[in-house]
């Protein structure tokens, strides 16, 4: 069982790279792009987070959706694009667990984006420690 779970993770990882690189086509107009090396780093980071959060991703990754949701934010700059995405995906999985999976991916992303833009004004620490925590508490 454990070995099969590991294989499952590796299989999904392979497919993910291509889909994330495809996002560059949509994000380029906002001045945001990931290199192949950065994409690899982001995927590795995502899998690290998944392991730490005790979660498994099967058919597709959340990263393309995360990228599309946040790419038009005025608070994200090219220089810290990768770092921001890494933190956002960490926050995403953390709150998937915290919400007991009561929020769908879309609902959580929408909530994160709205708080990030309107309440936190790009402050990821505030988003993680305060805003989302309060929302999840009310679920």
């Amino acid at each position, binding site marked *: *069982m454990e070995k*099969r779970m590991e294989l*499952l993770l590796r*299989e999904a990882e392979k497919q993910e790279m291509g889909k994330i690189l495809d996002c560059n086509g949509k994000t380029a107009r906002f001045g945001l792009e990931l290199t192949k090396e950065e994409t690899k780093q982001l995927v590795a980071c995502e899998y690290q987070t998944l392991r730490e959060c005790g*979660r*498994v991703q*099967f058919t597709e990754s959340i990263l393309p959706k995360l990228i599309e949701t946040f790419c038009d934010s005025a608070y994200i700059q090219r220089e810290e694009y990768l770092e921001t995405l890494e933190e956002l995906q960490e926050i995403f999985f953390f709150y998937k667990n915290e919400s007991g*999976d009561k929020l769908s*991916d879309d609902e959580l992303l929408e909530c994160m984006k709205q708080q990030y833009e309107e309440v936190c004004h790009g402050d990821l620490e505030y988003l993680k420690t305060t805003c989302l925590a309060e929302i999840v508490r009310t679920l």
Partner: protein
Amino acid sequence: MEMEMQTKEILELVGELTERYTSKESTSVTYETAQQLMGAVLYCIEENEKDGSGTELLQGQSSIRKIYEAGYEKVLQKVEQARILYNELAMDFEDYGSRALRETFDAIPQFFIRYDARFSPQNHILTLDYPVLHSQENLCGIDRIYAWLHCIRAEQEFLRSFSGEFVRKVLEKFHPDYEELFENLGEILLRKVVANRMLGLPSDWEILKEEDYQKLIQLFGELEKQEAEQKIYEILEGQCESEEQLLYVSGAIPNLAVGFLNMAETGNMEVFV
């Protein structure tokens, strides 16, 4: 290579099952949920292999998907068969006052209501507190419930081959509060039956005298464990009315043999029978 392909197919199935589980609203699930869903797929595949259909898998004649779906159908069929068996048993079910037996049996409908053949077929939901004579430890899901019901059917038939009054007297002699104990009723009755038959008495003979106990001590004192087991088996063979009954009560033979031999050694046969 073949194994790799099979694993890949299994993973695809788990992925699809996850999508159904989350209604496509979540791309990830907790590790526990993933294990549950992986277990669900493997359970159905193994269910199909139980009747020999699994050879197709080894020969590469069927895709894993087909085997999984066939296994899933078999799980559903087994649930239906278990439901029919339960309803048949319920018509003249007798608990002889045992609370554990009554409550465990009465809880079975909850299994049919809550059992999830698609997402968690390996979960039997109930703890099945009333012990039967065959270990269910290696079974799970519907297999465990179905096997337990088969055991109960064999046990009910065995108990019913004696008068209710006799059974209750034997149980009361075993313990005045037997109703509250988590003990198998069949095994208690079997002690009495084996003792009676060893003494050449009818199976439902009620009162044993001091000299009867002494004779049992002498008879079992002469036997090795294996001989005692063989002797008990022969007695049960003569007592049981069907193969299913014999197979079931045979599960008590090791305990009975050890019990009689210990009592013969310590001279406490009256406590045991």
